[in-house]
Structure formats: C-alpha cells, structure tokens
C-alpha cells in the first residue's frame, strides 16, 4: 500500500505530468477568455461541440474540477518531497563537488575573504569545511510551492464553505434573523444563506469629491443577536467582521423615493429605488409598471456638492405615449397625467453583502509565503564553498551555486584569487 502511494506521489510530481497539467490549465483558461461563458451567453450561437464539451461553462465542468484537484495534489506531493530535501541542503556538512575545483594555497586568506563576502561556516565541528551564503535561498522552492499549495487549499475551503448573499435595505429598515439573502450562493458545506442576526440599517453616509463624484460610502448597521445589539460602521472596501459574519458595504447605493399616486379608486403607494448618480451631470433611471398597465419612468438627479436633496422626475406613459411628466424640485406634490403624485419621503437605500464562508485566512496568508519563497528562490541565490583534501594532501575548494552560476562567476574568481594568494 505504502509502495503504491509512493509511486503515485512520484507520478504526481513527474516533470512531464506537471507540464501537461499546466498546459491543460492554460488551454482551459484560454477557452474561458475566448469563448463566451454562461451566463453572458445568450444571443451568441455556439457550435454544438463547444456546448457538449462544456467550453461555454469551463469553470463549472467536472473536468476543470478534476484538473484543479490534480494540480493541488501535485503541489502537495512536490512540497512533501522538496521540504526535507531543501532543509538538508541548508544544514549538510559538505556541498556538491564542483567540476572546476581550485587549489587553496592560503586557507586563512580564503576564509577571511569568505567571511567578508557574507559566507558563513556551517556545522558545529572543527575545522569548518563548508561555508554558505544566502542559505535561505535553498528554502525558496519549498516556500514558493507551499504558498501556492496554501492558495489552492484556501480556494478549496472557501468554495466548499461558501455562503454569501445580498441584502437590500433602506434607512430605518430592520430585517429579522433568518431573512433569506438575495442572489445567494452556497457551497456543499456552507452555512444557510440567511441572515444569522437581526440587521437594521441605521443610516447611510456618503462623501463626495469636489466635482460631485462619490468618494466614500459608509453604512451604519445595528446587529442584534437577541442578547445584545452592536452598532457598526461598514465602509466600502473595509468590511466589518462580526462573530462569524462579514458585512461588505457595496457601491450599489441610492435614493429611495416613497411616492403616493392619487386618481385611481385607491391611492397607490410606490417605493422607487434609484441608483446613486455618479456625478451632477449623470442621471439615473428606473421603470415601474403600474397595476393599470401604465408605465412610470423615474429619473433621479442630484448635485451632492450643494448638499441639496435629490430631484425626482416622473414620466407617465400609456401605450408607449407619454401622457404626463412631473418634476419634484420645488414642491412635493405635482400633477402627473390623470394622477396627483406626492413624494412622502426620501431615504437612502443600500446593498450590503453578507459573507459567511471560511478559509479566507488560509487563502490570503499564501500571499506572504509566495512572496518570501519567490525572493528566496530568485533573489537570494545560495552560494557555497566546500574545502577538502585531495589525494596528494593539498587543500581543494569546490565552489557551487545551484542556479544562475554564470551571474556569479566574478565571485568565484575573487575567491579563487584569494585562495591562491593573489590580490583581486
């Protein structure tokens, strides 16, 4: 059993298998980039073979998941193999033999230059026979692959425990614990996509640049778990973490206009949620079909620099013909075709993302490990020298750099010169 497992692990880290996996990943992602993917597919007619192979939904196909799993297993196998190997390379008492060793005539001078250039003796015994510079560089492959493995495992944990959804709220509104989230996504091990606590949007604060463009959105929420209530400010790009729940303030905010239409047998009360205009020159729109079949098109404009309330304009259409228009700038009550429209109130609305997935710590800590590993691998190139006696009794030095040796040939030459009593 153990033998079979070892063979399988060897197969996973086989150079050709690794290369084929990586190229297969490149090919799959090229499909994602070049073939329209669902749900954006619609008007585009794709050939039957593309649909049959799942090239229009690559990342959700079984074969892509197999590929990702295989890549993760390969990374795990590589880490298990290179970690002890790299550790041995740091602490070993002798380095690899050089194919171009040089004779040491003046050992003291060589050791002096070695120390001056940052080479440090390895091992506790005397006399020192191995001197190593940038020993951390030997751990580069382990750290880099460990970082990539952590990222893959993080993705796996987040995908399995995924639980995320949206909540649309208007200022003053309270949603009870257990309220179902909109556009919810839930992984096989994810928490139910419902509000875990009672949530109230106490207020929505928006800050704007001098030209009226949005600068900061901050929602003030009250989270109540039944025992105590906590007030928390959530700013866009700065999520708040409350026990096992993260709240992300979305950029999707705006003005909710509460309108009453009189003129039909019973007054109609409407809540029109219009997106935040991104500048004083840009208006936002929303259409609403009334019970009578007529359509109301709402338009919102606002100049946030003046700190004035937003202006609502309503247009009433019947059978495609505009039959009335009202602009609520000076008055809250206007005639709109056969109706009398009254704006009863204006409040801000906001969308907040409720996130309960796990594994983000694992995913995001991989960033640091990859960085350290990469620096160790490509910037801190280890160099070492091993001193030994040849058969004729002379001291011989073997200089070795595991990678980019040609870039350090001058260093080798300076050591050779010192060893042979030359002034470099």
């Amino acid at each position: 059993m153990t033998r079979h497992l070892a063979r399988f692990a060897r197969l996973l880290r086989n150079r050709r298998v690794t290369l084929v996996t990586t190229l297969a990943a490149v090919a799959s992602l090229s499909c994602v980039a070049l073939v329209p993917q669902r749900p954006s597919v619609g008007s585009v007619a794709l050939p039957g073979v593309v649909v049959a192979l799942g090239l229009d939904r690559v990342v959700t196909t079984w074969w892509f998941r197999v590929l990702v799993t295989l890549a993760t297993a390969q990374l795990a196998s590589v880490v298990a193999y290179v970690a002890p190997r790299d550790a041995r390379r740091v602490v070993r008492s002798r380095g690899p033999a050089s194919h171009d060793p040089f004779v040491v005539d003046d050992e003291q001078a060589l050791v002096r230059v070695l120390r001056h250039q940052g080479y440090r003796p390895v091992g506790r015994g005397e006399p020192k026979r191995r001197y190593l510079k940038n020993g951390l560089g030997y751990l580069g492959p382990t750290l880099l692959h460990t970082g990539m493995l952590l990222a893959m495992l993080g993705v796996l944990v987040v995908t399995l425990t995924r639980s995320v959804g949206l909540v649309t709220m208007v200022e003053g509104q309270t949603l009870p614990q257990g309220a179902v989230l909109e556009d919810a996504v839930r992984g096989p091990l994810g928490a139910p996509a419902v509000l875990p606590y009672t949530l109230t949007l106490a207020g929505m604060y928006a800050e704007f640049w001098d030209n009226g463009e949005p600068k900061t959105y901050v929602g003030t929420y009250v989270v109540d778990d039944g025992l105590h209530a906590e007030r928390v400010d959530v700013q866009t790009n700065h999520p708040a973490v409350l026990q096992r729940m993260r709240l992300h303030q979305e950029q999707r905010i705006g003005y909710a206009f509460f309108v009453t239409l009189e003129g039909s047998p019973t007054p109609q009360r409407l809540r029109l949620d219009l997106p935040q205009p991104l500048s004083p020159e840009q208006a936002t729109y929303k259409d609403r079909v009334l019970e009578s079949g007529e359509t109301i098109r709402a338009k919102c404009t606002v100049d946030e620099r003046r700190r004035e309330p937003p202006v609502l304009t309503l247009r009433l259409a019947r059978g495609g013909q505009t039959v009335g228009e009202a602009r609520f700038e000076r008055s809250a009550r206007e005639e709109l075709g056969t109706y009398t429209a009254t704006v009863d109130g204006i409040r801000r609305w906001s969308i907040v993302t409720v996130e309960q997935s796990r594994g983000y710590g694992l995913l995001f800590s991989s960033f640091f490990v990859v960085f350290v590993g990469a620096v160790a691998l490509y910037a801190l190139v280890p160099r070492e020298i091993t001193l030994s006696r040849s058969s004729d009794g002379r001291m011989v030095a073997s200089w070795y750099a595991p990678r980019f040796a040609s870039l350090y040939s001058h260093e080798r030459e300076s050591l050779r010169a010192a060893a042979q009593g030359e002034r470099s």
Partner: protein
Amino acid sequence: MSGLLEVLDPGAHLVAAVLYALAFVLALFSRQTGDVPDRGSKIAGAAGLLVHLTAIAGRWFAVGHGPFVTMYEDLSAYSAVVGAIALYLAMRGDQVARARVPMYPVAFLMLGVALYSGPQTSNLPPTFSGMWLVLHVCFYFLAFGTAVTAGASSVLVLRAASGPADADAASWERFDALAYRYAGLAFAFWGVGMLSGAVWAFNAWGRYWGWDPVETWSLITWLMFGVYLHLRRFFGWQGRRAAVLLAVCLGLAVMSLFGTTALSDSLHSVYFQ
C-alpha cells in the same frame, strides 16, 4: 502649489522620456563598460529616472493619490520601474549591463503613450482605498518591470544566436541566465500581485475572484511564465527557443495589462482609462 505641480508634470515626463532616449543611444554606442558613452548613458539614465520619480511624487502630492488610476499614471509608473531596473543593471558594471539597451526604448515608448493619452486627473472611487490596492498595483509594476528585463535579455540572446558563430559564449550564457532569473521574479511578483488583488477584490466587492477578462488573462500569463520556468529548469530549454517562449510570455503580459482593459468589457477597464 498643487496646481503648479500638475502643470509641470507633463513637461517633467517629457524630459524624462528624452533622457531615457539619450541613455539608449549612448548605451548603444558604448563598446565596453566604463567608456565615455557608457558613463554618459548611466548619467542620462539616472537623471531621467530622477526627473521621472520627482514627477510621479509631485503628481502624487498634487492629486492626493498614487499612480494607479488613469492610463497616464499607470504607464508612467510601469515605465519608471523599467527605468529603475535598467539603471540598476547599468550600475552593476559587468556585461549584463548591456541588457538595459532594449529596456530604455520600452520606458520611452510607454512614457510617449502616457503623454499621448493625456495627463488628466481622476478622483479615487470608493473602492480605491487601502493597503491591498497599493500592494496589488505595486507588485504588478514590479512584475512588468522584471518581465521586460527578462524580455530585453532574451532579445540579446536572440541577437547573439543570429550573429557570427564566434560570438562571446560567456556573455550569451549570462544574458540567458539573466532572462531566466528575471522571468522567475516576474512569475513571483505576478502571482503575488494576483493574490493581493484577490484580497482587495474581496474587501471591495465581497468576492476574491470573478473571472473578469483581466483576471483570466492574468492567470493565463502567470501559468505561461510557470511553463517557461519549468521547461528551463527540468527540460533544459535555453538559448533561442527559451527566448522565443519568453517573448510569448511578455506578449501575454502586455495583453493582460493593457490589451484586455482596452478591448473587453472588464471591471478593470472602468478605471484604466
């Protein structure tokens, strides 16, 4: 003060571009390390970088944010990193200093496109805040700069491969090793840029990956750099064919950073205008 800095900014960028061009011409005519054109190239490169960094810092002070919103700012920062690595190579004083020769035209060209796109300023939208955004863009600047260095070294490898048979084998080998090393750094910085971008996206939009065209092309580019490194390390690829593959990787990097934002409907293209 801020207004004055904004007015001076395009002029300073233009001066930096001219100095980079001068550094290129002088480096092209230098025959050996330390001769007059070589020293002139180093001085022009250093002066260009100094003016360039001063312009970036001045604009940063004037507009209140780093160089990561408009195309002008992005290209300027990418170009500055290329200029900085070119100067670092020049200061090494050995044969690899020649690798800077193809790098200066890249820095010059990027500054030219930046100036052509216009130095208009733009406000930071609500999602553009926090340390992760800064890390994300800085690592991409570094990734592109190191990828250009690898590409420049590959150009010299290709030139040597197409030259006379008695070309200096030692210097050819060094440029090949330099291309390998900087491609490794580009791979690492690119990966870290993607990961820090994932953290930023998670904070900004509540999701760490969205299969946005820029994200997808970025992942393809990173994997192709991985293929290059793998082929070099384990399959003995070097010289001409390694240089050609690296050129493909560099092309993908350009496509990811600039092509996708211009050609596709990407979340990133909203900002890179």
